[in-house]
C-alpha cells in the first residue's frame, strides 16, 4: 500500500505542474500585467510611472520566463519640447536607452536624443551616436533600443548619466527609459521571472503577497478556521441525517412514506441554495428572531452565527443525497446476507444499521471522501451572505477585486486539495472493502 501511495504522490507532481502552467498562461497571457495595473489603479489618469510602481511592488515588472538581467533604473517623461534629466548609474556595465513608442497616434515623434555622462570618458556609445553623443531619430521610429556601456572606473563614485531629449511638440506620454544590465547567475535568470515567483513557488505552498500587500499564506491560515466551523458540522450532521433518513425510507419501500419522501427529496433538490439562504435568513433571523441574520465571532460566541449556515448547508444537500443513499440501501437490502440475518431472528435495526450499512458504505464513500479536502475551501455563497470571514469569501472578494495573486493561489491550492481528495478516496476504498487491493 505504501508503494501505491508514494507512486500516486509522484504522479500528482506533474499534474500540479501542468495545472500551474495552464493557470499561469490563462492569467498572464489573456491579461497582461499592464492591463492588470490599469484595472487596479482605476479610471483617473494613470501615469506610466504609477503603472511601473504598481507592477514593481508585485514583481510583475519581471519578464515572463527568462530574465536577461535588464533592470530599469530611470524614466523620463518628455513633457516639454526640450527635456533633460540626470540619472545616477549603477556603476560600470551595459546599459540600454529605450525610446518607448508613442501612446496616441497624435503624439509627437521624437527628434533627437543626446547622452552624456560625468565623468564623460567612461561612456562608450554605439555607432548610431555621433561624437557629441547625439542621435537623430526618424519620424516613424517604433520603440528603439540603443545599447551603451559605462567603463568600470577605479573610483567608487557612481557616474551620472545625462539624457537630453527633444521633440517637435510637448508629449507628456512619450517616455525615454534607461536600463541597466545586471549580471545574473543562471539560477537568478530563471528564478527572477514572473513564472517562478508567481507560479512555481506555489507548488511549495509559498503564495507570496496579495495585490493588496497582505501575506496570502497567513491569510489562508486565518480563514480556514471560520470555513471549517461551518463545513465540518454541516458535513458530519449532514452525513448522519442523510444516512438515517435514507435508511428509514428504504425500510418503508413501497409505502406512502417512500412515495412522499421521494417527492419531497426531488422538491428540495430543485430549490436553489440561494433561496434557502434568503428564506432561512428571513424566517429564522427576521421573523422568528432566533439567530443573527449574519455575522461571525470566534470561540464559543460563534455558535449562534454558525447555527443557521450549518442548517442551510445540511438542508440544501439533503434532497439529492437522501435519494441517492436510499437507492444504495435498497440494493443492499435485497442481498442474501440480509435475508439470512433476518431469518436468524436479529432485530431489524441491527440488520440495517450494523450489517447492511457497512456494505452500503462503499459507494457512499466514493462520493463523500473526495469532498473532504474541500471542507477547507468553504462555501462561496454561504460565507458571502452570512458575512463569515472564511476561504469562500476570500475567493469571492479576490475575484470581485480582481486580485490575481489571491485567485491564482487559491486555484493552486484547490488543485492540490482535489488531488489529495482523489488519493484519499482510493485509500479509503481499501479500508472499507477488503476485496480491493491497491498495488
Amino acid at each position: 500500500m505504501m508503494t501505491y501511495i508514494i507512486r500516486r504522490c509522484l504522479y500528482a507532481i506533474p499534474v500540479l505542474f501542468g495545472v500551474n502552467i495552464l493557470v499561469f498562461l490563462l492569467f498572464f497571457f489573456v491579461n497582461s500585467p499592464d492591463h492588470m495595473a490599469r484595472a487596479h489603479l482605476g479610471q483617473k489618469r494613470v501615469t506610466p510611472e504609477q503603472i511601473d510602481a504598481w507592477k514593481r511592488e508585485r514583481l510583475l515588472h519581471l519578464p515572463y520566463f527568462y530574465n536577461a538581467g535588464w533592470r530599469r533604473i530611470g524614466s523620463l517623461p518628455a513633457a516639454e519640447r526640450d527635456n533633460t534629466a540626470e540619472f545616477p548609474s549603477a556603476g560600470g556595465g551595459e546599459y540600454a536607452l529605450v525610446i518607448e513608442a508613442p501612446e496616441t497616434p497624435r503624439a509627437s515623434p521624437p527628434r533627437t536624443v543626446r547622452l552624456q555622462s560625468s565623468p564623460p570618458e567612461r561612456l562608450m556609445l554605439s555607432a548610431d551616436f555621433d561624437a557629441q553623443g547625439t542621435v537623430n531619430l526618424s519620424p516613424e521610429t517604433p520603440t528603439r533600443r540603443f545599447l551603451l556601456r559605462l567603463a568600470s572606473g577605479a573610483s567608487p563614485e557612481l557616474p551620472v548619466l545625462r539624457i537630453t531629449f527633444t521633440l517637435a511638440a510637448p508629449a507628456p506620454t512619450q517616455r525615454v527609459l534607461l536600463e541597466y544590465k545586471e549580471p545574473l547567475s543562471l539560477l537568478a535568470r530563471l528564478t527572477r521571472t514572473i513564472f517562478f515567483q508567481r507560479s512555481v513557488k506555489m507548488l511549495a505552498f509559498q503564495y507570496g503577497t496579495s495585490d493588496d500587500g497582505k501575506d496570502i499564506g497567513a491569510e489562508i491560515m486565518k480563514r480556514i478556521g471560520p470555513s471549517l466551523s461551518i463545513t465540518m458540522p454541516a458535513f458530519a450532521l449532514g452525513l448522519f441525517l442523510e444516512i438515517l433518513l435514507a435508511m428509514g425510507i428504504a425500510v418503508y419501500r413501497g409505502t406512502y412514506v417512500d412515495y412522499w419522501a421521494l417527492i419531497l427529496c426531488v422538491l428540495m433538490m430543485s430549490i436553489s441554495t440561494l433561496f434557502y439562504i434568503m428564506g432561512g435568513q428571513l424566517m429564522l433571523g427576521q421573523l422568528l428572531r432566533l439567530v443573527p441574520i449574519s455575522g461571525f465571532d470566534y470561540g464559543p460566541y460563534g455558535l449562534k452565527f454558525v447555527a443557521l449556515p450549518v442548517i442551510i448547508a445540511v438542508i440544501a444537500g439533503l434532497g439529492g443525497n437522501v435519494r441517492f443513499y436510499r437507492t444504495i440501501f435498497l440494493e443492499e437490502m435485497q442481498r442474501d446476507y440480509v435475508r439470512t440475518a433476518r431469518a436468524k431472528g436479529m432485530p431489524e435495526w441491527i440488520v440495517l444499521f450494523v450489517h447492511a450499512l457497512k456494505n452500503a458504505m462503499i459507494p457512499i464513500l466514493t462520493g463523500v471522501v473526495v469532498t473532504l479536502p474541500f471542507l477547507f475551501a468553504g462555501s462561496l455563497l454561504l460565507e458571502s451572505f452570512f458575512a463569515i470571514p472564511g476561504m469562500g469569501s476570500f475567493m469571492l472578494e479576490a475575484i470581485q477585486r480582481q486580485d490575481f495573486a489571491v485567485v491564482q493561489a487559491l486555484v493552486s491550492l484547490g488543485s492540490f486539495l482535489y488531488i489529495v481528495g482523489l488519493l484519499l478516496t482510493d485509500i479509503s476504498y481499501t479500508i472499507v472493502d477488503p476485496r480491493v487491493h491497491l498495488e
Partner: protein
Amino acid sequence: MGKPMLMGLACMFILALVVVSACTNNPYRSSEAGRNIYYDTFHEEPKHLDPARAYSSDEYLLINQIYEPVVQYHYLQHPYTLVPLTAVSVPVPQLYDKDGQLLSPDDPAEDVAGVIYEIRLRPGIQYQDHASFAQAQDGTYRWHLQPGASFPAVEHPDALPAKDTRELRAADYVYQIKRLAHPLLECPIFPVLANYIEGFAEFRQLLEGEIAHIRAARRQAAGVFYNQEADERTNPIFLDLRQYDLPGVQIVDDLTFRITLTKSYPQFLYWLAMPFFSPVPWEVDRFYTQSAAVARNLTLDRFPVGTGPFKLAIYQPNYRVVLRHNAHFHPEKYPEEGSPENAARGLLADRGKPLPFLEEAVYVLEKESVPRWNKFLQGYYDDSEISSDVFDQAVQVSAVGGAELTDALRAKHIRLETDVAPTTYYYAFNMLDEVVGGYDTKKRKLRQALSIALNIEEYIQIFLNGRGIGAQSPIPPGIFGYQEGPQGINPIIYEWDEQLRGPRRKDLETAKRLLAEAGYTDGKSLVLFFDTRAGGPESKAFLDWLRKQFAAIGVQLQVRSTDYNQFQTKVLQGNFQLIQWGWSADYPDPENFLFLLYGPNAKVTTQGENAANYDNPRFNELFRRAENMVNSTERAALIRDMLAIAQEDAPWIWGVHPVGYGLYHAWQHNTKPLTFGGNTLKYKRIDPDLREQSRVAWNRPITGPLWGALTVLILATIPATISIYRRQRRTP
C-alpha cells in the same frame, strides 16, 4: 422500539429545549450590551490607512477620526467654513512679491512670487499611547531596532509591552508633508502639490537620489544574488526625512511651521484640512519602517497613530474594525453655534459639551445590502442609507410631494434626514463638434432647445426615487456662489413659479420654437448621438426614456455604447456629441466646479477636466479674476456673471445634484447625512439604555413555530413507528 432509542429521543428533546431557550438574534456579545458603542458597517476592506496614501471613502471613514490636520470644517455652519483644529487659528496667507515685499490682496496676481502660510499649533496636544514613543532609561527607543532583530509575536502594536505618548510638535506636520514627496509612497496628490509647494519636485528628486545610493550600496554588499524587491520587502529602506531640507516647508519653532507656495492658491487651506496634512512623528515612521515590524505585518498602512479622539484598537479588515476613545485626546467642545437649518434640526442641543461622546465605534464588514438593512431594522446598526431595492419599504411620497417615512419605520421612531451632495451630474455637449458645438446664435439656441426638452425633474422622479434636485448651474447648494430663490434659477430653461415656490420648466413649445430658430424647421431634422459606456438592463430603461425626451421635439437620438476604455478614448479625443458626466467636489469652493468650464482645461487639448471643451473668452477672463479670490460680494458678482454666460451658451444640460438620504434610530443624536470633512464621529451621541430597550422589545424570539414544526414531525412518524413495531412482532 428499544429503551436506548427512547432515552436518546428524550435527551435530544431536552437539548432542543436548552438550545431554543438560548436563542437570540443579537450578533454582538452580551458583554457589549448597554455600553456606549456605535455600530456601523463598511463595505470594502480599506487598502491604505497611511495618510500619505489613503484616498477612498472607506479609508477616510477610519482615519478621519484618528488623525488631526491643522484645520477642520465647522460641523454646523452653512456654507462650509474652516475652523482651527490643532492650530491656534485658521492660517492667513501672506503674499509676497519677488523682492520680498508684502503684498495686499488687491495687488495683481501676477506680482505674487510667493505665498507664506504660518501655522501655530496649540500646546499640550498628545498622541495616543504607542510603542514607537517608548524609551528606555538611557533615552534610546525601545522598539527602534536594527535589521535582524525581531518583535515578540504580536498582531497589533498596542500589544507590545512598552508604550508611551508625547506632545504634538510642528516638526511632525513638516515630516508628513515631506513624506508626501517620498518616491516609495506614491502619494496620489503629489503631482498637484508639486505645482504649488516651493521646492517640492526637487525634494522628491533629492530623495530618489538618496534611495538610489542606498540601493547601489546594498547591491554591492549583496553581490550577484541581490534581489531588490525581496530585500526591500523584508528590510525596507528608511529615510530619516528630518535630515533633508524642503525649502517650502520650514520649522520655525516647536509649535510653529511655515509653508511657502510659489503662487496664490486660496484653496490650499482646504487641502490642509485633508488627512494628507496630518502629523506623522519621525518615531512612528522609524518604528514601522524596520524589518521587525514588517515581519509581523505592522505597517502604518494598517495601524495609524494620531492625536485624534479615537485610536484603532482592533483591525481585522475581513471581519470588524474597532475604534476606541483615545485617553490622551485634548479637550474639545461641541460647537456653540451653527446655521439656522441645523439649529432647527436640534443639532445645537449639546452645545459646549466635551467631546467625544462615544466610548467605542465598531465597524462590521457587510457586503450584502439585504442583511445590512435587516439588521438596521432590528436595531443592531445605528444608521443606514437607503438602497433602491428597499426604498419603498422605507420612504413614501406624502400628499404634498415630499418624502416621509413609512408607518413601519415611524413606529420604531426612526428619523429621516436629507442633505444635498456637493456633486453635480450633467450632460456635456462637445463644443468642438460641428453639429452641436459652436458659439453663434443658432447653435446656442439648438443647445438651449435640447436642454429644455430633457426633463430632469422627470428623471429624478423615475430613476432616483426623487432623491435629487435639478441643477440650475454647475454649483450645488452649500457652496459659495449658489443662489436660492428666483435669482438663482436658470432663466433659459426655467421660469419662477410663485405657487410652487420653485422653478418650473419651460414647455416643449418653447423648445420647438428654439429648435426652429436654430434652423431645424420641417424637412430638416436633427440626429443627435449620445455616447455612453455599455450598461446592463437598468440602463436600457434610461436610454429609452432619453430617446423619448428628444423625440418629443422631433430630434432623433442615436445611442452609441462601447466599453469603458473606448468611451474614455472617445472623450479624450473629442469624438462625441453628447455624454453624461459628473463631478464631486474635492473641497467646498466654487472654483472646484467652475474650473470644469474653463477654456484652458479643455480635455482635448490638455487632458483637463473640461470634458465639453467649452472655451468662452469672457468666461475665461472672469474665471481668472475670481478663482483665487476670497469669498466676498465682489466674487459673488463675478460668479453670477460667469453663470449667466454659461447658461446662455448652454454647453451642458445642467443635470442633477443628488440628495443623500440617511436613516437614524431614535437613540442616535447629532447626525447629518453628508458633510465635508468626515471627522464627525466625535460629535455623535448614543443613548445606550434606549437602544438596549428597543433592541430587546423588537427582537423577542418567537419559538412557537419551532415547537409546532417539531411536534408535527414527531406526529408524522408515529404511524410509521407503529407499523415497524407491528412488523417486528408479526409472526410469519
